[in-house]
């Protein structure tokens, strides 16, 4: 099969890009553990408060610098509405919804995911700077959607 010189150039460029993208994706998924916010962890949406870990919403310390935050999103608030962690802490957010689809968004971080009823949606973030972090819902969930927020206090 005869290939024109230009065709060889763009085929090499295209296949090379594909290989690089898939390599980055594969390394970040399998070596660094990046994963989608919702990955097969489920909870009964009718009885969210009866099932662990949402029977005790709030912050749980896992080790010296790691915390797990179990949060229930509902129209139009989060439970708990405020958590406090020391600076440098890594927080694993486990969030579910007891009613409709919400979101859990901390602006200017990679924590930005949908909160779907029946699923335990997860994300992890290390807070390296002290301050008050706002958490917002960015999925329209009803008339009070714009009031739906919580805060994360990162203290020295």
């Amino acid at each position, binding site marked *: 099969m005869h290939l*024109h010189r*230009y*065709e060889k150039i*763009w085929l090499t*460029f*295209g296949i090379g*890009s594909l290989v690089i*993208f898939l390599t980055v994706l594969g390394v970040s998924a399998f070596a660094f553990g990046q994963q989608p916010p919702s990955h097969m962890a489920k909870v009964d949406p009718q009885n969210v408060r009866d099932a662990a870990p949402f029977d005790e919403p709030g912050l749980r310390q896992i080790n010296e610098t790691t915390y797990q935050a179990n949060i229930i999103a509902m129209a139009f608030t989060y439970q708990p509405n405020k958590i406090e962690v020391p600076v440098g802490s890594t927080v694993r957010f486990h969030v579910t919804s007891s009613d409709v689809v919400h979101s859990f968004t901390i602006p200017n971080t*990679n924590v930005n995911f949908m909160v779907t009823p029946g699923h335990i949606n997860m994300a992890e973030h*290390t807070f390296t700077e002290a301050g008050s972090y706002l958490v917002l819902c960015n999925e329209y969930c009803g008339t009070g959607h714009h009031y739906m927020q919580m805060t994360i206090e990162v203290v020295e």
Partner: protein
Amino acid sequence: MAKNNSNLEPNRNHVPTETNSSSLKGTLIFTMSIGLFIVLSWSAIFFLFLNRM
């Protein structure tokens, strides 16, 4: 008759090759432009993601 046909064949093959090489230049430029746009936007978003970790 057979001689005439065989004389025409090389010319027919020769002409389209030149046309193809000139017409692929624009295709190459646009393919590479779109390719660069995809690579640059993908890289920008990827580095934004890394900065926010």
